[in-house]
C-alpha cells in the first residue's frame, strides 16, 4: 500500500505540474492582434450551421484584416479568433466560454450557433462583463433577461414566420386560416412557434395540429399523416437544417398536399440544391438574402458577398454566414468608435451602434436585439431542373410574386 501511496503522489504532482504549465494567461490584445473567442458547433447536431457560422466569421476576419484592420488609438490592429468545438451541447458551450475568458484571457466574444447555446453562454459572459456580439441566437427570451453585454445582429425568432401567417390570411381573402405546425423541441424553434401563436391569435386563425418534434429530427411522418387527414391551409415546420431536410423529404415521399408550406433554414439546408424540384414552392423565413439592397465598404453588396463567399468556400452563403460576417463588422465599428480596448467603453460603443452592413441595418434595442432589420421571406422556385430562392416578401425587395396555392403532387411533374 505504501508504494501505491507513492505512486499516487507522483500522479498528483504530475497533474499539478501540467496544469501549472498551461495556465499561463494570454492577453486580450496580443501585439497587433485583437483576440476574440468563440465556441462553435463543429460536431453534433448543429455542425453544418456551426460551420456556416465559422466560415462567416473567418471570411470577415480575413477581409477586415486585409483592408487595414481595426484602428484604435492611431494604431492598426488585426482580428484573430480562438475557436473551440462546443459539440452542439449547451453544457459544453458554457464550460468553453468560461475557459475562453479565464484561461485564454479573451475579453470579447463572438456568439455560438443556435439560441440554446447562446442561452448557455450569455450568463457566463455577463458574469465576467465580456461584450458578446452574437449572430445566431434569435430566441426572444435571450433579450428579456436584462443582459447588458449581449448584442445580437439578427431579428428575434418569433418574427421568423409571423409574416407567413399574415400572407396566408391575405391569400385566403382576409379570412382566418387553419394552421398545422410542427416544431423541434429546442429554444429557437419553440420561439418561432410563439410567433405563430401570436399571429394566429391576431388573425383569429385556428391551430389544428400543434406537434413537438424531437431533436435530431429525422422523422415527422406522424405529423404529416395528420396533415393529410385534416387538410390545413398552411403547414409550418421549424427544426434547423435537419428539420427542413426531413420535412421536404417526407412531404414529397408521402405526397402531402398542402396549399402553403412555411419553414426555416431552407438556405442553410441548401434545399434547392439537395432536393431540387421537390422543394419547390416552400416558403422560407430568412434573415438575409443576396438580392437585398444593403451595402458596406468591406463586402460591397449582398450579391458581391455571395460571389466572394462562393469563391472562398464553394457554396452559396446561407444567412447564417452573412449574419456572422456582420457581427465582426459591428465589433470593428465599436472598437473604432470606442477608440479603446476598455471592455465597458467597447460595450457602450456597441450599445450606440447604428450602421449599415451588406447584411442589413444594425441598431440594438434595449434588450440587445437588432431592431433595425426586418425579416424576409423567400420561396423556392424552379426553372427546369435548377431551383433558386426568390424573395417574395416584403414587397420592397420582392423579385418574384408569391406563388399560391402549391399545386397538388398529382399535378406536379
Amino acid at each position, binding site marked *: *500500500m*505504501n*508504494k*501505491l*501511496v507513492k505512486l*499516487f*503522489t507522483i*500522479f*498528483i504532482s504530475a*497533474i*499539478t505540474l*501540467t*496544469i*501549472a504549465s498551461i*495556465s499561463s*494567461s494570454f492577453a486580450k490584445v496580443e501585439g497587433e492582434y485583437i483576440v476574440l473567442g468563440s465556441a462553435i458547433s*463543429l*460536431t453534433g447536431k448543429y455542425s453544418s450551421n456551426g460551420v456556416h457560422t465559422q466560415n462567416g466569421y473567418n471570411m470577415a476576419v480575413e477581409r477586415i484584416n486585409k483592408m487595414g484592420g481595426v484602428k484604435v488609438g492611431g494604431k492598426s490592429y488585426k482580428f484573430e479568433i480562438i*475557436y*473551440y*468545438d462546443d*459539440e*452542439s*451541447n*449547451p*453544457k459544453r458551450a*458554457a*464550460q468553453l466560454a*468560461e*475557459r475562453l475568458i*479565464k*484561461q485564454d484571457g479573451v475579453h470579447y466574444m463572438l456568439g455560438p450557433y443556435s439560441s*440554446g447555446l447562446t*442561452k*448557455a453562454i450569455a*450568463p*457566463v459572459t*455577463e*458574469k*465576467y*462583463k465580456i461584450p458578446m456580439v452574437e449572430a445566431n441566437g434569435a*430566441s*426572444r*427570451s435571450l433579450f*428579456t*433577461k*436584462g443582459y447588458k453585454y449581449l448584442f445580437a445582429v439578427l431579428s428575434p425568432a*418569433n418574427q421568423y414566420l409571423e409574416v407567413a401567417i399574415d400572407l396566408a390570411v391575405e391569400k385566403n381573402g382576409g379570412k382566418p386560416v387553419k394552421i398545422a405546425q410542427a*416544431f*423541434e*423541441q*429546442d*429554444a429557437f*424553434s*419553440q*420561439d418561432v412557434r*410563439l410567433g405563430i401563436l401570436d399571429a394566429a391569435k391576431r388573425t383569429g386563425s385556428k391551430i389544428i395540429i400543434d406537434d*413537438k418534434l*424531437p*431533436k435530431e429530427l429525422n422523422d415527422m411522418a406522424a405529423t404529416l399523416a395528420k396533415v393529410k387527414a385534416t387538410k390545413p391551409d398552411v403547414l409550418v415546420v421549424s427544426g434547423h437544417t435537419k428539420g427542413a431536410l426531413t420535412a421536404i423529404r417526407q412531404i414529397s415521399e408521402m405526397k402531402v398536399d398542402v396549399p402553403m408550406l412555411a419553414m426555416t433554414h431552407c438556405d442553410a439546408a441548401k434545399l434547392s440544391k439537395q432536393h431540387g424540384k421537390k422543394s419547390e414552392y416552400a416558403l422560407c423565413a430568412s434573415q438575409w438574402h443576396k438580392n437585398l439592397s444593403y451595402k458596406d465598404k468591406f463586402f460591397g453588396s449582398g450579391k458581391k458577398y455571395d460571389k466572394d463567399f462562393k469563391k472562398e468556400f464553394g457554396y452559396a452563403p446561407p444567412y447564417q454566414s452573412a449574419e456572422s460576417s456582420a457581427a465582426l463588422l459591428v465589433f470593428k465599428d465599436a472598437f473604432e468608435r470606442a477608440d479603446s480596448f476598455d471592455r465597458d467603453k467597447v460595450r457602450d460603443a456597441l450599445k450606440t451602434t447604428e450602421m449599415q452592413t451588406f447584411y442589413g441595418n444594425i441598431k440594438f434595442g434595449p434588450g440587445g436585439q437588432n431592431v433595425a432589420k426586418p425579416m424576409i421571406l423567400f420561396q423556392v422556385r424552379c426553372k427546369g431542373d435548377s431551383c433558386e430562392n426568390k424573395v417574395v416578401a416584403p414587397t420592397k425587395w420582392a423579385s418574384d410574386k408569391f406563388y399560391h396555392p402549391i399545386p397538388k403532387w398529382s399535378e406536379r411533374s
Partner: protein
Amino acid sequence: MVKVKQKDLVLYSGLIILGLAAPFLFSAFKVQLTYLCVLIVLAMTWNLQGGEMGYNSFGNILFYGLGMYLTASVQVGMFFPLAEWTESGGEKTFVHTTAQYFQGIGVGLLVAAIIPTIVAGAIGYAILGLRGHYFAICTLGLGIAAGEIAGGIEIIGAGQGFTTPPFPAEIVDPEARGKFFYFLSFIVLVLAFVFVKYIYGSRFRLILNAIRDNEDKAEAMGIQTMKYKIVGWMCSAFFCGLAGGIMGGLIGYIDSTDVAFDGREMGVFMVLMAILGGKGTLWGPIIGATLFHFFKEGLWTFILGWQYVALGVLIVVIVVYFPEGLMGWLREKYPERFGEVIDDKDRKAQVELK
C-alpha cells in the same frame, strides 16, 4: 465508523489540503475542477452498482437530471411563480436576493438528494428483477424517456430550456461564483468518498459482491438480494441527484436532453470513467475520472472535430488492453501491493506450466 490506517491518513489529509487549496492555486481552472469533482462523484457512485453489484446501469443519468431540475425548480419556486419564470419570452424579470439564492439552492439540493433516492427505490423495485443485459438496456431507456418527457413539460421550460437563477449580483467578486460551486462539489465529493469508503468496510459490500458473483447462490444463502439491490441503487441516486443539482446551478441553463438527461455524454462518461479506472475498486473510479477529465480537457481542443474519434480509440484501448481498468491492471502486475499473498512455489509452478 470508517477506520483509517496511519499511512492512509497522510494520503487523505494531503488530498484534502490539495482539494481545499486547488481553487486558489489554479484559479483559472475552477470550473474544470468543479466538473472533476462531479465526475468523480458520478463515477464513484456508479461503481456501487456497476462495479460492486454487477448491475450495469445506464440510468443513473435519470437521477442526475432529476436533481438538476429539482434544484432549479425549488430555487425559483420558493420565491417566485415558477411558470412565469420559465415562460418563454416572458417579459418579467425576477431577481433573487443573495439570501434567497443561497436558501433556495440549499433547500433545492436537499430535495434533489431525497426525491431521486425515492424514485430509485420505486423504479428499482420494478426493474431490479431484471438481470445482466436486460437490466442495462432497460435503464438505457429510462434516461432517454425522461429527457423526452421533460422536454414536454411547460412548467420547467419544455424545449425552451430552463435558465437557472443567476448568481446574486450583490456579490461583486466575479470569482465568488466559481469558488462557491467548487466548494459545494468538493463537499459532496468528500461526503461521497467517506460514504463509499464506509461501505467498503461493511458487510453490505460483501453482499453486493455476492450478488455480482452469483446472485442465485447469494439468494440460497438467505440474502434478500432484492432489498440490497434496491438500497444499493438508492445510494447512487442520492449522490447523482446532488451532483446534478450542483451542475445545473453551475451551467446556468438546463436543456432537457443535452444538459439534464444527457445520457449520450454524462450517462456514458460515468460508466466509461469507472471502467477506465477499474470497476469494483475504491480508487479506480477516482483515478479513471481524473484521467478521463484531463484527457478530455487537454486533448479535446487540439483535435477539433476528431475528439469523438479519439474517445472511440480510447474506449477500444481500454477494452483491449485494460479490460479490468487501470487498477485491475496494476493489481495483476503488483498483486502484493493490494494485499494479496503470493505463494512463491505457486508462482513458479505456474511459470513452469506455461
